[in-house]
Protein backbone atom coordinates (compact mmCIF):
# COMPACT_ATOMS: atom_id res chain seq x y z
CA UNK A 1 0.00 0.00 0.00
CA UNK A 2 1.46 3.34 -1.08
CA UNK A 3 1.32 5.91 1.72
CA UNK A 4 0.63 9.49 0.77
CA UNK A 5 0.43 12.42 3.11
CA UNK A 6 -1.97 15.30 2.62
CA UNK A 7 -1.48 18.72 4.14
CA UNK A 8 -2.69 22.29 3.96
CA UNK A 9 -2.28 25.27 6.23
CA UNK A 10 -6.09 25.42 6.71
CA UNK A 11 -8.88 22.93 6.89
CA UNK A 12 -10.21 24.55 3.74
CA UNK A 13 -12.90 23.36 1.32
CA UNK A 14 -10.05 22.70 -1.13
CA UNK A 15 -8.31 20.38 1.31
CA UNK A 16 -11.54 18.56 2.05
CA UNK A 17 -12.30 18.18 -1.60
CA UNK A 18 -8.85 16.83 -2.31
CA UNK A 19 -9.16 14.39 0.56
CA UNK A 20 -12.47 13.12 -0.83
CA UNK A 21 -11.01 12.88 -4.31
CA UNK A 22 -8.01 10.84 -3.17
CA UNK A 23 -10.19 8.58 -1.04
CA UNK A 24 -12.40 7.93 -4.05
CA UNK A 25 -9.56 6.78 -6.28
CA UNK A 26 -9.47 3.06 -6.82
CA UNK A 27 -5.77 2.91 -6.13
CA UNK A 28 -3.96 1.15 -3.35
CA UNK A 29 -3.30 4.31 -1.40
CA UNK A 30 -3.18 4.92 2.29
CA UNK A 31 -4.01 8.59 2.68
CA UNK A 32 -2.75 10.21 5.84
CA UNK A 33 -4.13 13.64 6.59
CA UNK A 34 -1.66 15.73 8.57
CA UNK A 35 -3.27 18.25 10.94
CA UNK A 36 -3.92 21.45 8.98
CA UNK A 37 -1.65 24.23 10.20
CA UNK A 38 0.80 22.04 12.09
CA UNK A 39 1.90 19.06 10.05
CA UNK A 40 4.29 17.59 12.56
CA UNK A 41 2.17 17.84 15.68
CA UNK A 42 0.39 14.52 15.44
CA UNK A 43 1.57 10.93 15.78
CA UNK A 44 0.70 10.53 12.08
CA UNK A 45 3.75 12.65 11.25
CA UNK A 46 5.97 9.99 12.81
CA UNK A 47 5.10 7.83 9.84
CA UNK A 48 6.69 10.30 7.43
CA UNK A 49 9.91 9.10 5.86
CA UNK A 50 12.34 10.95 3.64
CA UNK A 51 11.21 10.73 -0.02
CA UNK A 52 7.52 10.10 0.84
CA UNK A 53 4.83 11.68 -1.30
CA UNK A 54 3.40 14.81 0.28
CA UNK A 55 0.40 16.50 -1.32
CA UNK A 56 0.18 20.17 -0.39
CA UNK A 57 -3.03 22.06 -1.04
CA UNK A 58 -3.29 25.85 -1.35
CA UNK A 59 -6.48 27.80 -1.96
CA UNK A 60 -4.84 31.07 -2.96
CA UNK A 61 -1.64 33.16 -2.98
CA UNK A 62 -1.76 33.67 0.80
CA UNK A 63 -1.80 29.96 1.47
CA UNK A 64 1.07 29.49 -0.95
CA UNK A 65 3.04 32.04 1.07
CA UNK A 66 2.31 30.18 4.32
CA UNK A 67 3.61 26.97 2.76
CA UNK A 68 6.67 28.79 1.47
CA UNK A 69 7.55 30.03 4.94
CA UNK A 70 8.09 26.44 6.06
CA UNK A 71 9.38 25.07 2.82
CA UNK A 72 12.55 23.74 4.38
CA UNK A 73 10.37 21.28 6.31
CA UNK A 74 9.06 19.79 3.10
CA UNK A 75 12.34 19.55 1.20
CA UNK A 76 12.95 15.88 1.80
CA UNK A 77 9.54 14.83 0.51
CA UNK A 78 8.26 14.52 -3.02
CA UNK A 79 5.73 17.32 -3.30
CA UNK A 80 2.59 17.37 -5.37
CA UNK A 81 1.03 20.81 -5.23
CA UNK A 82 -2.70 21.27 -5.64
CA UNK A 83 -3.90 24.81 -6.27
CA UNK A 84 -7.57 25.53 -5.80
CA UNK A 85 -8.17 27.26 -9.10
CA UNK A 86 -6.13 29.02 -11.72
CA UNK A 87 -7.79 32.37 -11.00
CA UNK A 88 -6.98 32.42 -7.27
CA UNK A 89 -3.24 31.95 -7.69
CA UNK A 90 -1.75 34.84 -9.53
CA UNK A 91 1.99 34.45 -9.09
CA UNK A 92 4.37 31.65 -9.94
CA UNK A 93 5.95 31.76 -6.50
CA UNK A 94 4.51 28.34 -5.72
CA UNK A 95 7.29 26.93 -7.91
CA UNK A 96 9.67 27.79 -5.06
CA UNK A 97 8.26 24.71 -3.33
CA UNK A 98 9.84 22.63 -6.12
CA UNK A 99 6.74 20.49 -6.62
CA UNK A 100 7.05 17.39 -8.80
CA UNK A 101 3.56 17.97 -10.10
CA UNK A 102 1.28 21.00 -9.99
CA UNK A 103 -2.42 20.59 -10.62
CA UNK A 104 -5.55 22.71 -10.31
CA UNK A 105 -8.41 21.42 -8.25
CA UNK A 106 -11.04 22.79 -10.58
CA UNK A 107 -9.96 21.03 -13.76
CA UNK A 108 -6.72 19.15 -13.51
CA UNK A 109 -7.20 16.26 -11.10
CA UNK A 110 -7.08 13.45 -13.66
CA UNK A 111 -3.37 14.25 -14.05
CA UNK A 112 -2.85 13.68 -10.34
CA UNK A 113 -4.69 10.38 -10.59
CA UNK A 114 -2.49 9.38 -13.53
CA UNK A 115 0.67 10.31 -11.69
CA UNK A 116 -0.37 8.43 -8.56
CA UNK A 117 -1.54 5.41 -10.48
CA UNK A 118 1.80 5.32 -12.28
CA UNK A 119 3.60 5.32 -8.95
CA UNK A 120 1.26 2.62 -7.61
CA UNK A 121 1.69 0.61 -10.80
CA UNK A 122 5.47 0.64 -10.49
CA UNK A 123 5.04 -0.64 -6.96
CA UNK A 124 2.19 -3.07 -7.47
CA UNK A 125 3.89 -4.76 -10.35
CA UNK A 126 7.10 -5.26 -8.48
CA UNK A 127 5.22 -6.45 -5.42
CA UNK A 128 3.78 -9.37 -7.27
CA UNK A 129 7.10 -10.66 -8.45
CA UNK A 130 6.65 -14.39 -7.75
CA UNK A 131 3.70 -14.59 -10.15
CA UNK A 132 5.49 -12.65 -12.80
CA UNK A 133 8.68 -14.51 -13.33
CA UNK A 134 7.86 -15.02 -16.98
CA UNK A 135 7.47 -11.32 -17.55
CA UNK A 136 9.84 -8.42 -17.65
CA UNK A 137 9.81 -4.74 -16.93
CA UNK A 138 10.51 -1.80 -19.15
CA UNK A 139 12.73 1.06 -18.09
CA UNK A 140 9.96 2.71 -16.07
CA UNK A 141 9.17 -0.39 -14.09
CA UNK A 142 6.03 -1.08 -16.11
CA UNK A 143 5.16 -4.63 -16.88
CA UNK A 144 5.68 -5.94 -20.39
CA UNK A 145 5.10 -9.47 -21.54
CA UNK A 146 8.17 -11.15 -22.89
CA UNK A 147 7.79 -12.33 -26.47
CA UNK A 148 7.38 -16.10 -26.57
Amino acid at each position, binding site marked *: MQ*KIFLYSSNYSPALQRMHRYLSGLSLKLQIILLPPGSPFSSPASLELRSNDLLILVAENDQEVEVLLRNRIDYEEFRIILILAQQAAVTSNRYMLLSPRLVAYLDHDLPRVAEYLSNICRIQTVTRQVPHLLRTSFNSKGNLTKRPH
Partner: protein
Amino acid sequence: MAHILIVDDNTMLCELLSSQLRSADHTVLSALTLQEALQLAQQESFDLILLDVQLPDGNGLDAFQQFAQTSSRPEIIIMTGSGDAEGAKKAIQSGAWSYLEKPNILQNLVSPLTRALEYREEKKRIEQAPVALKREGIIGSSPVINSSLDQVACAAAGGANVLITGETGTGKEVFARAIHENSHRGTKAFVVVDCASLPENLIESTLFGHVKGAFTGADRSATGLIKLADGGTLFLDEVGELPERIQKTFLRVLQERSFRPLGSTREEQSNFRLLAATNRDLSQKVKDGSFRPDLLYRLRSLSLHLPPLRERKEDIRPLCRHFLVRLCERTQVSSKEISDEFFETLMDYEWPGNVRELQQTLEQVFANAIHHPTLFAYHLPAHIRVCTAMQGLTHEEPPPPATAPVSSLHQGRPTDWKSFKAEQERQYLQQVFTYTRGNIKESCRISGLSRARIYQLINLHNLSTQQKVAF
Protein backbone atom coordinates in the same frame (compact mmCIF):
# COMPACT_ATOMS: atom_id res chain seq x y z
CA MET B 1 39.55 36.74 -28.65
CA ALA B 2 40.03 33.04 -29.32
CA HIS B 3 42.82 30.89 -30.68
CA ILE B 4 41.46 28.94 -33.65
CA LEU B 5 42.79 26.12 -35.84
CA ILE B 6 41.42 25.57 -39.34
CA VAL B 7 41.98 22.07 -40.74
CA ASP B 8 41.24 21.92 -44.47
CA ASP B 9 43.18 20.89 -47.56
CA ASN B 10 41.68 23.75 -49.55
CA THR B 11 44.24 26.56 -49.23
CA MET B 12 41.88 29.17 -50.55
CA LEU B 13 39.16 28.36 -48.04
CA CYS B 14 41.75 28.40 -45.26
CA GLU B 15 42.83 31.88 -46.25
CA LEU B 16 39.29 33.16 -46.60
CA LEU B 17 38.26 31.85 -43.21
CA SER B 18 41.48 33.02 -41.59
CA SER B 19 41.06 36.56 -42.77
CA GLN B 20 37.43 36.68 -41.66
CA LEU B 21 38.27 35.29 -38.24
CA ARG B 22 41.27 37.58 -37.82
CA SER B 23 39.10 40.56 -38.61
CA ALA B 24 36.97 39.48 -35.65
CA ASP B 25 40.10 39.66 -33.48
CA HIS B 26 40.83 35.94 -33.28
CA THR B 27 44.26 34.40 -33.78
CA VAL B 28 44.23 31.72 -36.44
CA LEU B 29 46.48 28.90 -37.63
CA SER B 30 45.70 26.46 -40.40
CA ALA B 31 46.75 22.97 -41.37
CA LEU B 32 46.29 21.16 -44.68
CA THR B 33 46.56 17.59 -43.41
CA LEU B 34 45.40 15.64 -40.38
CA GLN B 35 48.92 14.86 -39.29
CA GLU B 36 49.99 18.49 -39.37
CA ALA B 37 46.80 19.50 -37.57
CA LEU B 38 47.22 16.97 -34.79
CA GLN B 39 50.78 18.10 -34.26
CA LEU B 40 49.69 21.73 -34.01
CA ALA B 41 46.80 20.82 -31.69
CA GLN B 42 49.23 19.16 -29.34
CA GLN B 43 51.66 22.07 -29.31
CA GLU B 44 49.21 24.95 -29.07
CA SER B 45 46.18 25.70 -26.89
CA PHE B 46 43.30 26.08 -29.30
CA ASP B 47 39.89 27.22 -28.15
CA LEU B 48 38.20 26.07 -31.28
CA ILE B 49 38.96 23.82 -34.25
CA LEU B 50 37.21 23.99 -37.60
CA LEU B 51 37.65 20.49 -38.93
CA ASP B 52 37.16 19.25 -42.49
CA VAL B 53 36.02 15.65 -43.03
CA GLN B 54 37.78 14.55 -46.25
CA LEU B 55 41.48 15.20 -45.78
CA PRO B 56 44.35 13.84 -47.87
CA ASP B 57 45.61 11.61 -45.07
CA GLY B 58 42.30 10.49 -43.51
CA ASN B 59 38.82 11.29 -42.28
CA GLY B 60 38.48 14.23 -39.89
CA LEU B 61 35.60 12.57 -38.01
CA ASP B 62 37.77 9.56 -37.23
CA ALA B 63 40.36 11.84 -35.63
CA PHE B 64 37.70 13.80 -33.74
CA GLN B 65 38.45 12.33 -30.31
CA GLN B 66 42.20 12.93 -30.71
CA PHE B 67 41.52 16.62 -31.25
CA ALA B 68 38.91 16.79 -28.52
CA GLN B 69 41.27 15.26 -26.00
CA THR B 70 44.24 17.56 -26.52
CA SER B 71 45.12 19.50 -23.40
CA SER B 72 43.10 22.64 -24.19
CA ARG B 73 39.94 20.51 -24.78
CA PRO B 74 38.93 22.65 -27.76
CA GLU B 75 35.39 23.04 -29.06
CA ILE B 76 35.08 21.53 -32.54
CA ILE B 77 32.97 22.51 -35.53
CA ILE B 78 32.90 20.11 -38.50
CA MET B 79 32.99 21.38 -42.10
CA THR B 80 32.23 19.27 -45.09
CA GLY B 81 31.90 19.59 -48.83
CA SER B 82 28.60 17.82 -49.33
CA GLY B 83 25.49 17.10 -47.25
CA ASP B 84 25.96 13.80 -45.48
CA ALA B 85 23.31 12.93 -42.91
CA GLU B 86 25.24 10.03 -41.42
CA GLY B 87 28.39 12.14 -41.08
CA ALA B 88 26.42 14.93 -39.45
CA LYS B 89 24.93 12.52 -36.96
CA LYS B 90 28.29 11.01 -36.17
CA ALA B 91 29.85 14.45 -35.71
CA ILE B 92 27.17 15.67 -33.35
CA GLN B 93 27.21 12.42 -31.43
CA SER B 94 30.95 12.74 -30.94
CA GLY B 95 30.36 16.11 -29.37
CA ALA B 96 30.90 18.54 -32.25
CA TRP B 97 29.25 21.90 -31.84
CA SER B 98 27.92 21.99 -35.33
CA TYR B 99 28.14 20.45 -38.74
CA LEU B 100 28.41 22.99 -41.54
CA GLU B 101 28.41 22.64 -45.31
CA LYS B 102 31.24 24.47 -46.96
CA PRO B 103 29.46 26.27 -49.75
CA ASN B 104 27.72 28.48 -47.18
CA ILE B 105 30.25 28.31 -44.44
CA LEU B 106 31.08 32.00 -44.28
CA GLN B 107 27.45 32.94 -43.60
CA ASN B 108 26.57 29.97 -41.40
CA LEU B 109 29.62 29.93 -39.22
CA VAL B 110 28.89 33.01 -37.15
CA SER B 111 26.15 31.69 -34.90
CA PRO B 112 27.70 28.32 -33.90
CA LEU B 113 31.09 29.98 -33.53
CA THR B 114 29.73 32.63 -31.19
CA ARG B 115 27.82 30.10 -29.12
CA ALA B 116 30.76 27.71 -28.89
CA LEU B 117 33.06 30.52 -27.74
CA GLU B 118 30.55 31.86 -25.22
CA TYR B 119 30.21 28.40 -23.80
CA ARG B 120 33.96 28.11 -23.56
CA GLU B 121 34.27 31.42 -21.75
CA GLU B 122 31.71 30.18 -19.27
CA LYS B 123 33.73 27.04 -18.67
CA LYS B 124 36.88 29.08 -18.05
CA ARG B 125 35.11 31.36 -15.58
CA ILE B 126 33.94 28.34 -13.65
CA GLU B 127 37.43 26.95 -13.41
CA GLN B 128 38.71 30.23 -11.96
CA ALA B 129 35.79 30.77 -9.61
CA PRO B 130 36.52 31.50 -5.97
CA VAL B 131 35.37 28.82 -3.55
CA ALA B 132 32.92 30.24 -1.01
CA LEU B 133 29.74 28.41 -0.48
CA LYS B 134 26.40 28.51 1.28
CA ARG B 135 26.04 24.91 2.34
CA GLU B 136 23.07 24.85 4.68
CA GLY B 137 21.61 21.41 4.71
CA ILE B 138 24.73 19.68 3.43
CA ILE B 139 26.27 17.87 6.33
CA GLY B 140 29.64 16.14 6.37
CA SER B 141 33.25 17.18 6.23
CA SER B 142 34.96 14.08 4.89
CA PRO B 143 37.61 14.87 2.26
CA VAL B 144 35.40 13.45 -0.51
CA ILE B 145 32.44 15.60 0.49
CA ASN B 146 34.67 18.66 0.76
CA SER B 147 35.94 18.06 -2.71
CA SER B 148 32.35 17.65 -3.97
CA LEU B 149 31.53 20.96 -2.29
CA ASP B 150 34.42 22.63 -4.12
CA GLN B 151 32.93 21.37 -7.33
CA VAL B 152 29.54 22.73 -6.28
CA ALA B 153 31.12 26.16 -5.76
CA CYS B 154 32.71 26.08 -9.21
CA ALA B 155 29.54 24.87 -10.87
CA ALA B 156 27.47 27.51 -9.07
CA ALA B 157 29.71 30.29 -10.35
CA GLY B 158 29.09 29.38 -13.98
CA GLY B 159 26.07 28.43 -16.00
CA ALA B 160 27.14 25.17 -17.61
CA ASN B 161 24.94 22.09 -17.53
CA VAL B 162 25.88 19.71 -14.74
CA LEU B 163 25.26 15.98 -14.57
CA ILE B 164 25.24 14.66 -11.00
CA THR B 165 25.78 10.95 -10.60
CA GLY B 166 25.92 8.66 -7.60
CA GLU B 167 24.14 5.72 -6.04
CA THR B 168 20.62 6.11 -4.77
CA GLY B 169 20.31 8.34 -1.70
CA THR B 170 23.78 9.88 -1.94
CA GLY B 171 22.36 13.40 -2.06
CA LYS B 172 22.14 14.19 -5.76
CA GLU B 173 19.12 16.40 -5.31
CA VAL B 174 20.60 18.10 -2.26
CA PHE B 175 23.73 18.95 -4.22
CA ALA B 176 21.70 20.09 -7.22
CA ARG B 177 19.83 22.50 -4.94
CA ALA B 178 23.12 23.72 -3.51
CA ILE B 179 24.40 24.52 -7.01
CA HIS B 180 21.17 26.38 -7.70
CA GLU B 181 21.12 28.25 -4.40
CA ASN B 182 24.72 29.35 -4.74
CA SER B 183 24.24 30.54 -8.30
CA HIS B 184 22.94 33.95 -9.35
CA ARG B 185 19.62 32.19 -10.02
CA GLY B 186 19.34 31.18 -6.37
CA THR B 187 16.29 33.29 -5.56
CA LYS B 188 14.37 31.94 -8.55
CA ALA B 189 12.67 28.57 -8.86
CA PHE B 190 14.41 25.23 -8.69
CA VAL B 191 12.10 23.25 -10.95
CA VAL B 192 12.17 19.48 -10.60
CA VAL B 193 11.22 17.23 -13.49
CA ASP B 194 10.58 13.79 -12.10
CA CYS B 195 11.53 11.73 -15.16
CA ALA B 196 11.05 8.41 -13.35
CA SER B 197 7.56 8.91 -11.91
CA LEU B 198 5.82 11.00 -14.52
CA PRO B 199 3.86 8.70 -16.82
CA GLU B 200 5.16 8.93 -20.37
CA ASN B 201 1.98 10.59 -21.68
CA LEU B 202 2.27 13.36 -19.09
CA ILE B 203 5.95 14.18 -19.47
CA GLU B 204 5.58 16.10 -22.69
CA SER B 205 2.74 18.38 -21.62
CA THR B 206 4.30 18.80 -18.17
CA LEU B 207 7.61 19.89 -19.68
CA PHE B 208 6.46 21.97 -22.62
CA GLY B 209 2.98 23.04 -21.53
CA HIS B 210 0.08 23.07 -23.96
CA VAL B 211 -2.49 25.32 -25.55
CA LYS B 212 -6.24 24.90 -25.19
CA GLY B 213 -7.47 22.01 -27.32
CA ALA B 214 -4.00 20.54 -27.88
CA PHE B 215 -5.33 17.10 -26.95
CA THR B 216 -8.49 15.55 -25.58
CA GLY B 217 -9.06 16.96 -22.13
CA ALA B 218 -6.91 20.08 -22.67
CA ASP B 219 -9.76 22.50 -22.04
CA ARG B 220 -7.38 25.26 -20.93
CA SER B 221 -3.84 26.17 -21.75
CA ALA B 222 -1.11 25.28 -19.26
CA THR B 223 2.41 26.54 -18.69
CA GLY B 224 5.09 23.86 -18.81
CA LEU B 225 7.99 23.36 -16.44
CA ILE B 226 10.50 24.66 -18.99
CA LYS B 227 8.75 28.02 -19.01
CA LEU B 228 8.30 28.00 -15.22
CA ALA B 229 12.05 27.52 -14.89
CA ASP B 230 12.69 30.79 -16.79
CA GLY B 231 15.35 32.66 -14.83
CA GLY B 232 15.88 29.68 -12.54
CA THR B 233 17.12 26.11 -12.72
CA LEU B 234 15.55 23.09 -14.38
CA PHE B 235 16.50 19.86 -12.63
CA LEU B 236 15.97 16.64 -14.59
CA ASP B 237 15.82 14.05 -11.85
CA GLU B 238 16.50 10.44 -12.91
CA VAL B 239 17.27 11.72 -16.40
CA GLY B 240 18.17 8.19 -17.52
CA GLU B 241 14.45 7.40 -17.50
CA LEU B 242 13.55 10.14 -19.99
CA PRO B 243 11.69 8.43 -22.87
CA GLU B 244 13.71 8.36 -26.09
CA ARG B 245 11.17 10.42 -28.03
CA ILE B 246 11.42 13.21 -25.46
CA GLN B 247 15.20 13.02 -25.34
CA LYS B 248 15.18 14.14 -28.95
CA THR B 249 12.79 17.04 -28.41
CA PHE B 250 14.63 18.10 -25.30
CA LEU B 251 17.97 18.11 -27.08
CA ARG B 252 16.51 20.63 -29.48
CA VAL B 253 15.41 22.79 -26.56
CA LEU B 254 18.96 22.75 -25.25
CA GLN B 255 20.42 23.70 -28.58
CA GLU B 256 17.93 26.41 -29.45
CA ARG B 257 16.96 27.56 -25.94
CA SER B 258 13.42 27.71 -27.23
CA PHE B 259 10.51 25.29 -27.26
CA ARG B 260 6.99 24.93 -28.54
CA PRO B 261 4.06 24.14 -26.21
CA LEU B 262 1.92 21.22 -27.41
CA GLY B 263 -0.57 22.36 -30.03
CA SER B 264 1.09 25.75 -30.44
CA THR B 265 2.65 27.12 -33.59
CA ARG B 266 4.74 29.66 -31.72
CA GLU B 267 8.23 29.10 -30.37
CA GLU B 268 8.76 30.35 -26.82
CA GLN B 269 11.96 31.22 -25.03
CA SER B 270 13.11 30.18 -21.59
CA ASN B 271 16.35 31.09 -19.95
CA PHE B 272 17.00 28.24 -17.55
CA ARG B 273 20.07 26.54 -16.19
CA LEU B 274 20.06 22.80 -16.60
CA LEU B 275 21.06 20.31 -13.93
CA ALA B 276 20.43 16.59 -14.21
CA ALA B 277 20.90 13.59 -11.97
CA THR B 278 20.99 9.87 -12.42
CA ASN B 279 22.02 6.76 -10.58
CA ARG B 280 22.30 4.89 -13.87
CA ASP B 281 25.38 4.41 -15.98
CA LEU B 282 24.40 6.66 -18.87
CA SER B 283 27.42 5.69 -20.96
CA GLN B 284 26.18 2.12 -20.75
CA LYS B 285 22.70 3.27 -21.74
CA VAL B 286 24.25 5.03 -24.71
CA LYS B 287 25.92 1.75 -25.70
CA ASP B 288 22.59 -0.08 -25.31
CA GLY B 289 21.02 2.51 -27.57
CA SER B 290 18.51 3.70 -24.96
CA PHE B 291 20.08 7.10 -24.33
CA ARG B 292 21.12 9.62 -26.95
CA PRO B 293 24.87 10.27 -26.94
CA ASP B 294 24.41 13.85 -28.11
CA LEU B 295 22.09 14.55 -25.18
CA LEU B 296 24.51 12.95 -22.73
CA TYR B 297 27.27 15.11 -24.14
CA ARG B 298 25.21 18.25 -23.61
CA LEU B 299 24.11 17.27 -20.10
CA ARG B 300 27.62 16.50 -19.00
CA SER B 301 29.35 19.82 -19.64
CA LEU B 302 30.37 19.44 -16.02
CA SER B 303 29.96 16.33 -13.96
CA LEU B 304 29.79 15.73 -10.25
CA HIS B 305 29.99 12.25 -8.80
CA LEU B 306 28.83 11.76 -5.22
CA PRO B 307 30.55 9.04 -3.22
CA PRO B 308 28.54 6.37 -1.40
CA LEU B 309 28.21 6.76 2.35
CA ARG B 310 30.29 3.63 3.03
CA GLU B 311 33.29 5.50 1.57
CA ARG B 312 32.86 8.41 3.98
CA LYS B 313 31.79 6.80 7.18
CA GLU B 314 33.19 9.71 9.19
CA ASP B 315 30.14 11.66 7.99
CA ILE B 316 27.71 9.24 9.65
CA ARG B 317 28.02 10.78 13.10
CA PRO B 318 27.32 14.42 12.09
CA LEU B 319 24.59 13.34 9.67
CA CYS B 320 22.96 11.31 12.39
CA ARG B 321 23.03 14.20 14.86
CA HIS B 322 21.69 16.56 12.21
CA PHE B 323 18.73 14.33 11.36
CA LEU B 324 17.93 13.75 15.00
CA VAL B 325 18.02 17.46 15.84
CA ARG B 326 15.69 18.17 12.93
CA LEU B 327 13.28 15.45 14.02
CA CYS B 328 13.24 16.73 17.60
CA GLU B 329 12.69 20.30 16.47
CA ARG B 330 10.02 19.38 14.01
CA THR B 331 7.98 17.35 16.47
CA GLN B 332 8.91 19.58 19.42
CA VAL B 333 10.30 16.70 21.41
CA SER B 334 13.17 17.45 23.79
CA SER B 335 16.59 16.55 22.46
CA LYS B 336 17.93 13.03 22.80
CA GLU B 337 21.29 11.62 23.74
CA ILE B 338 22.96 9.12 21.44
CA SER B 339 24.99 6.33 23.00
CA ASP B 340 28.42 5.45 21.63
CA GLU B 341 27.37 1.91 20.80
CA PHE B 342 24.54 3.34 18.70
CA PHE B 343 27.11 5.16 16.58
CA GLU B 344 29.42 2.15 16.52
CA THR B 345 26.62 0.00 15.18
CA LEU B 346 25.86 2.57 12.49
CA MET B 347 29.54 2.55 11.51
CA ASP B 348 29.62 -1.23 11.02
CA TYR B 349 26.80 -1.16 8.50
CA GLU B 350 27.41 -0.60 4.78
CA TRP B 351 24.38 1.62 4.01
CA PRO B 352 23.42 0.42 0.53
CA GLY B 353 20.71 3.11 0.44
CA ASN B 354 23.25 5.73 1.55
CA VAL B 355 22.22 8.94 3.31
CA ARG B 356 18.56 8.42 2.60
CA GLU B 357 18.66 5.02 4.29
CA LEU B 358 20.42 6.55 7.28
CA GLN B 359 17.79 9.27 7.45
CA GLN B 360 14.89 6.84 7.14
CA THR B 361 16.46 4.59 9.76
CA LEU B 362 16.65 7.49 12.17
CA GLU B 363 13.08 8.47 11.39
CA GLN B 364 12.04 4.94 12.26
CA VAL B 365 14.19 4.79 15.41
CA PHE B 366 12.87 8.19 16.46
CA ALA B 367 9.27 7.09 16.05
CA ASN B 368 9.86 3.90 18.03
CA ALA B 369 11.89 5.53 20.77
CA ILE B 370 9.98 8.76 21.02
CA HIS B 371 9.79 8.55 24.82
CA HIS B 372 13.37 7.39 25.36
CA PRO B 373 15.83 10.14 26.27
CA THR B 374 18.82 8.14 24.95
CA LEU B 375 19.14 6.09 21.79
CA PHE B 376 20.88 2.73 22.17
CA ALA B 377 21.90 0.18 19.58
CA TYR B 378 18.93 -1.99 20.45
CA HIS B 379 16.65 0.72 19.06
CA LEU B 380 18.12 0.03 15.63
CA PRO B 381 16.57 -2.48 13.22
CA ALA B 382 17.92 -6.02 13.50
CA HIS B 383 19.52 -6.12 10.04
CA ILE B 384 21.78 -3.24 11.06
CA ARG B 385 22.69 -4.70 14.45
CA VAL B 386 23.53 -8.02 12.83
CA CYS B 387 26.43 -6.40 10.96
CA THR B 388 28.11 -5.45 14.20
CA ALA B 389 27.61 -8.97 15.45
CA MET B 390 29.13 -10.36 12.25
CA GLN B 391 32.16 -8.09 12.53
CA GLY B 392 32.87 -9.73 15.84
CA LEU B 393 32.68 -13.15 14.23
CA THR B 394 35.18 -12.54 11.46
CA HIS B 395 38.16 -12.72 13.81
CA GLU B 396 37.08 -15.94 15.42
CA GLU B 397 37.50 -19.60 14.53
CA PRO B 398 34.90 -20.92 12.09
CA PRO B 399 31.82 -21.65 14.16
CA PRO B 400 31.13 -25.30 15.05
CA PRO B 401 28.12 -26.92 13.37
CA ALA B 402 24.85 -26.36 15.15
CA THR B 403 21.19 -26.16 14.34
CA ALA B 404 19.99 -23.28 16.46
CA PRO B 405 18.21 -20.45 14.63
CA VAL B 406 20.68 -17.85 13.48
CA SER B 407 18.65 -14.86 14.49
CA SER B 408 19.44 -15.71 18.11
CA LEU B 409 23.06 -14.66 17.74
CA HIS B 410 23.25 -13.35 21.26
CA GLN B 411 21.40 -16.27 22.75
CA GLY B 412 23.80 -19.15 23.20
CA ARG B 413 25.04 -21.68 20.74
CA PRO B 414 25.76 -20.41 17.21
CA THR B 415 24.48 -22.22 14.17
CA ASP B 416 26.49 -23.67 11.25
CA TRP B 417 28.11 -21.27 8.81
CA LYS B 418 25.95 -22.17 5.84
CA SER B 419 22.63 -21.56 7.57
CA PHE B 420 24.04 -18.42 9.12
CA LYS B 421 24.97 -17.10 5.70
CA ALA B 422 21.62 -18.07 4.23
CA GLU B 423 19.83 -16.28 7.04
CA GLN B 424 21.92 -13.15 6.50
CA GLU B 425 21.10 -13.26 2.81
CA ARG B 426 17.40 -13.57 3.57
CA GLN B 427 17.49 -10.71 6.06
CA TYR B 428 19.44 -8.55 3.69
CA LEU B 429 16.91 -9.11 0.92
CA GLN B 430 14.07 -8.34 3.27
CA GLN B 431 15.78 -5.16 4.25
CA VAL B 432 16.35 -4.14 0.63
CA PHE B 433 12.73 -4.90 -0.27
CA THR B 434 11.44 -3.04 2.74
CA TYR B 435 13.59 -0.08 1.84
CA THR B 436 12.53 -0.09 -1.81
CA ARG B 437 9.00 -1.07 -0.85
CA GLY B 438 9.24 -4.11 -3.05
CA ASN B 439 10.49 -2.30 -6.15
CA ILE B 440 12.67 -4.78 -8.00
CA LYS B 441 14.34 -2.23 -10.20
CA GLU B 442 15.40 -0.19 -7.18
CA SER B 443 16.43 -3.36 -5.38
CA CYS B 444 18.73 -4.34 -8.27
CA ARG B 445 20.20 -0.88 -8.25
CA ILE B 446 20.87 -0.81 -4.53
CA SER B 447 22.12 -4.36 -4.14
CA GLY B 448 24.09 -4.51 -7.37
CA LEU B 449 22.41 -7.88 -8.01
CA SER B 450 20.97 -8.69 -11.40
CA ARG B 451 17.23 -9.01 -11.79
CA ALA B 452 17.61 -12.72 -12.53
CA ARG B 453 19.65 -13.26 -9.37
CA ILE B 454 17.09 -11.40 -7.27
CA TYR B 455 14.29 -13.59 -8.57
CA GLN B 456 16.42 -16.65 -7.89
CA LEU B 457 16.99 -15.54 -4.30
CA ILE B 458 13.29 -14.75 -3.82
CA ASN B 459 12.50 -18.33 -4.78
CA LEU B 460 15.39 -19.78 -2.83
CA HIS B 461 14.37 -18.09 0.39
CA ASN B 462 10.71 -18.48 -0.32
CA LEU B 463 10.06 -14.84 0.37
CA SER B 464 6.38 -14.08 0.33
CA THR B 465 4.79 -10.89 -0.96
CA GLN B 466 3.99 -9.92 2.61
CA GLN B 467 7.59 -10.15 3.67
CA LYS B 468 8.85 -8.20 0.72
CA VAL B 469 6.68 -5.20 1.25
CA ALA B 470 6.51 -5.19 5.00
CA PHE B 471 6.84 -1.54 6.06
